[in-house]
């Protein structure tokens, strides 16, 4: 169950730092926004890969978006896979893009599951005390 490489980087810590009394569910809300938009982007990417003639410009633009929102919540593995995808776009390597997309979808599914478990656990443990940084 425990992965070798972390799924989230310090950007996620920053989100938790930003959570306060005025927005006590900030982290969950931001993650919800990401999980709302990212499936649509992944689906658009898939559709665009299937198109002929190939539109690498659009593919790059879509992955760029996904990379941007992923990195702002600290989804480091997704961010890295987006970089790989972009490199394939640059090389006009459609097969590489296809493989990369499959990886991105798997990473996304795993990340979603882990985040949802995390928030569920927080709810069980204590609604008010979670994610408070002791160092101010």
């Amino acid at each position, binding site marked *: *169950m*425990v*992965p070798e*490489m*972390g*799924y*989230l*980087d*310090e*950007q*996620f*810590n*920053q*989100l*938790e*730092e*930003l959570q306060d009394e005025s*927005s006590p569910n*900030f982290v969950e*809300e*931001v993650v919800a*926004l*990401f999980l*709302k*938009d990212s499936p649509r982007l992944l689906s658009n990417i898939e559709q665009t890969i299937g198109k002929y003639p190939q539109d690498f410009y659009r593919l790059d*633009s879509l992955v*760029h*978006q996904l*990379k*941007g*929102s992923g*990195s*702002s*919540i*600290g989804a480091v593995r997704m961010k890295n896979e987006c970089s790989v995808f972009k490199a394939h776009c640059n090389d006009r390597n459609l097969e590489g893009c296809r493989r990369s997309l499959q990886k991105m979808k798997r990473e996304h599914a795993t990340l979603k599951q*882990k985040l949802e478990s*995390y928030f569920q*656990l*927080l709810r*069980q*443990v*204590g609604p008010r*005390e*979670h*994610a*408070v*940084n*002791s*160092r101010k």
Partner: protein
Amino acid sequence: MCNLYILLLADLRLYVVLQMMNGNIWSVSDPEGLRETVMLALQFQVQHVTPVSGASSDLYRLSPIPNFNGLHVLLVDGDDTNRAVTHKLLEKLGCRVFSVSSGIQCMTSFAGGESSFQLVLLDLTMHTMDGFEVALAIRKFRSNSWPPLIVALAASSDDNVRDRCQRSGINGLLQKPVTLAALGDELYRVLQHN
């Protein structure tokens, strides 16, 4: 009474540490036992839940967060996730923030005229209207108040981007993803210079 600490590492691993009254410390990081441990924890008084970085370095700034005392900022970013995060970062820095999701909305906010924005934080990777076009449009917009300062958000801060920013009348540039420290520093620098 016991103290329970639940540590969430940045890679989503969970450690539960229980400190008994006599000072003994138990820690559990076994995934199978975790659910049972959490149920047990509910019987104790939960004192503290702290996110801990997996890295050894201290990721939390020890220097104080600057406060911009109600600086009126217009945030322009087409991505919902990024806009939510940046909005909160600005609020944390003491700014008064109004967020829009497109270049068109940005220009409408200016035309609205009621409140004058002192600074525009503009994401360059927008789709309906190019970020540089928006910056130029803001510059051209005639109003009684001083033209606002513009700080751009971009995926890259290479020379090409910096060049284009300068030519579009943009005063500052931040590379994404944005951190509280970097945003505070760049806003401070831009305000100092103008």
